[in-house]
């Protein structure tokens, strides 16, 4: 396989992704460093760390999420435990996205053909994609190791920690190297990579939840499990790092073999043909929007159901967990608004679901702008569809899809809590409304998006910025002791903190009114402005 031109392609790829890469790497490193810093202040003593470990290791749901705490002797070991489960997953995801983006997605868009006609070897794009993934993994691994070693943790443990993270990146870059040969589209390749990643996480989670022996061995089937079992600062199992790297290399070789057996633009898995004629339901703007957005709604709903069940399922151990640190207790109570720790925790969990639902709401509302700028709105709007009907078809999703998510999350949280506390109907009745009352806060974000879309279409993307800032305040404000005026800026602050606190309808009505005014202004603007 000819690799000529890999260098320029890699530089081009890194340049194209400089902002996205910087954001991802920043977020990953911020979570590593933030975790270390917060552990240092929350669990300064060995006994507080042991208490934390005991309550985590006692709780199957928490073990599924993070794995078992294997060493309470140092902040480094605690940080590595906390990060390797989820951080490895996220770095793996980044690497899959990077490889796909620079290989299959480019090929699909036809841009690779343009490059391929130049002095670029057949193997160069894949090498550049993997190179971009390796670059990101190296930065994350090295900075992690350097930071922890510099902050006084053991050197070999820090190196093993960084290497385990790096190994996750390499291994899943390899997964993507195969996936992009199989699928014909970038989206499908990401789907395959994401499915493998999800399976790896589930195997690791199931194994850790089951505990040692028996089904616990499932962990060994998952690369994320290998990374976890490196156990930096405790075992420093370098052979598992080597296993991760070898898996990545072997998969890359397979990817290259497969690449040699297919044409540019072709995939090894055939595209399935779809229906030759439209179903009866595809006959209106709403029918089209439903067809375009139903897949994502189903995916998000499943995600909310799982997330809700996890959040509900860990609620029993939470009071012990929280009581191991008085700081954590204060933060949860401040966010959750109740002195009863379990209620406060669950109210916080509902708030968390609402923040994620706000992401969904913004994303689905932005679909309007995406349809407009891609030119797909034009034929629809030139076919006798009113602008408001077109917009309304899509806005059903931020408006009611968000409700479905919150209901699903609230319901499964209720089921989860009900199972661990032994009162399923009681907890379901308690948590379902607690989820649903978040809806007006979520609507505000969709309404801001619609207002921008209707009145200042070029700035529609700023909706992400508004969401980011307000989520940051809502999520970290209570922990950072932010002033009440700052917290009051976010809609989430105003939602009654159920369960635990009293219910007030007034703030919900105000939030609904605000959403209606913003969305109304946006839609009025849409009727008047130029499309395109």
């Amino acid at each position, binding site marked *: 396989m000819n690799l000529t031109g890999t260098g320029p392609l890699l530089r081009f790829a890194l340049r194209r992704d400089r902002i996205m890469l910087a954001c991802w790497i920043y977020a990953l490193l911020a979570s590593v460093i933030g975790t270390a810093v917060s552990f240092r202040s929350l669990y300064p003593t060995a006994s507080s760390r042991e208490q934390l470990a005991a309550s985590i290791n006692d709780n199957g749901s928490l073990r599924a999420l993070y794995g078992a705490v294997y060493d309470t002797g140092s902040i480094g070991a605690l940080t590595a435990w906390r990060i390797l489960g989820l951080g490895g997953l996220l770095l793996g995801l980044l690497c899959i996205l990077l490889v796909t983006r620079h290989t299959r997605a480019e090929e699909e868009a036809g841009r690779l053909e343009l490059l391929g006609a130049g002095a670029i070897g057949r193997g160069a794009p894949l090498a550049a994609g993997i190179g971009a993934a390796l670059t990101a993994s190296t930065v994350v691994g090295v900075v992690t190791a350097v930071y922890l070693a510099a902050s006084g943790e053991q050197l070999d443990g820090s190196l093993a920690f960084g290497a385990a993270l790096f190994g996750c990146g390499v291994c899943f870059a390899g997964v993507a190297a195969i996936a992009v040969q199989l699928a014909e589209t970038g989206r499908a390749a990401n789907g395959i990579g994401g499915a493998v990643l999800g399976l790896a996480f589930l195997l690791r989670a199931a194994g850790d939840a089951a505990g040692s022996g028996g089904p616990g061995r499932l962990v060994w089937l998952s690369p994320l499990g290998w990374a976890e079992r490196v156990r930096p600062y405790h075992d420093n199992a370098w052979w598992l790092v080597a296993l991760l790297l070898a898996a990545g290399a072997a998969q890359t070789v397979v990817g290259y073999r497969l690449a040699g057996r297919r044409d540019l633009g072709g995939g090894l898995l055939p595209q399935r043909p779809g229906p030759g004629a439209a179903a009866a339901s595809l006959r*209106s703007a709403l029918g089209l929007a439903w067809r375009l957005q139903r897949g994502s709604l189903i995916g998000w709903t499943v995600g909310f159901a799982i997330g809700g069940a996890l959040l509900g399922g860990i609620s029993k151990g939470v009071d012990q967990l929280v009581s191991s640190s008085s700081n954590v207790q204060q933060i949860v109570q401040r966010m959750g608004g109740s002195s009863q720790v379990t209620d406060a925790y669950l109210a916080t969990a509902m708030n968390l679901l609402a923040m994620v639902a706000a992401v969904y709401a913004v994303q689905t509302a932005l679909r309007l702008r995406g349809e407009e700028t891609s030119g*797909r709105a034009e034929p629809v709007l030139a076919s006798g569809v009113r602008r408001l009907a077109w917009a309304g078809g899509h806005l059903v999703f931020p408006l009611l899809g968000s409700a479905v998510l919150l209901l699903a999350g609230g319901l499964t949280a209720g089921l989860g809590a009900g199972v661990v506390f032994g009162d399923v109907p009681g907890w379901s009745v308690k948590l379902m409304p607690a989820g649903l009352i978040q809806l007006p806060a979520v609507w505000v974000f969709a309404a801001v998006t619609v207002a921008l879309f209707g009145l200042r279409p070029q700035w529609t993307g700023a909706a992400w910025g508004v969401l980011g800032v307000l989520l940051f305040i809502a999520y970290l404000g209570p922990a950072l002791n932010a002033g009440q005026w700052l917290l009051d800026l976010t809609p989430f602050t105003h939602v009654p903190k159920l369960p635990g606190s009293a219910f007030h309808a007034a703030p919900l009505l105000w939030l609904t009114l605000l959403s209606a005014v913003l969305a109304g202004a946006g839609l009025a603007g849409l009727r008047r402005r130029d499309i395109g």
Partner: protein
Amino acid sequence: MTTAIDVSGLVKTFGRTRALDGLDLGVAQGEVHGFLGPNGAGKSTTIRVLLGLIRADAGRAALLGGDPWRDSVALHRRLAYVPGDVTLWRGLTGGEVIDLLGRLRGNGADRGRRAELLERFELDPTKKGQTYSKGNRQKVALVAAFCSDAELLILDEPTSGLDPLMEEVFRACVAEERDRGRTVLLSSHILSEVEALCDRVSIIRAGRTVETGTLSELRHLTRTSVAAELAAPPTGLDALPGLHDVELHGTTLRCQVDTDHLDALLRTLTAAGVRSLTSRPPTLEELFLRHYEPESATAATAEVVE
């Protein structure tokens, strides 16, 4: 109602760019009207005003007797539109898009006509949007437009990406539409296409209409190419008005002549004795080139074709 499209003095600015600068366009009912202009001349902007997608800053536009902005929904039910750059939804097949667009307009497609068009355009309706090539995406929009029973077809550079065989199919379809009494506005910069299909053309440049009329009317304004083999060298050529690009080698003459002065030239040639004579009306290419050259250069550079 005999005018399908009646536009006058249309102005549209985007920031500092004046995309339309007093554009006029008249399309009679039942005609195929060529709408010619180079990239960026304002063809698509005009069409978007006609579709009510954007609002003109000044000027008047009437479409099928209605106001394209105010009555857009009612008007859209009576027209079909093919954009110049067709983007399809990833998850939807071509067949689904064709049906959807027909149903949105309120008239489901005639199944027989739909099947016939799919066959003629050799389009596989079961492929998903992202897997179609540029030409095939164009075909999806064309089939959707041709199997509607709209009275007006607005086609914005509809053949970009089609291979020559498919262009032939496209031309046949447009001719059929005309025979069925429909009006077609065909924006294009492919001149042979317009020459083959259109009853009348409007040529626009920089947001303004520079020429409009039937092809023969437009030719009347321009030059005829003449090549002659003569018995003896002609005399008095220099004195003739309206003669351009004269190449005289002994008894062989090539030149272009303003169509009004053709008669005088022929008399001079017959006086010298004609052995052979070919005269050719200007092609649309030549019309086009004349209109797109910067004004000052027009006289100097009219190219000799052949």
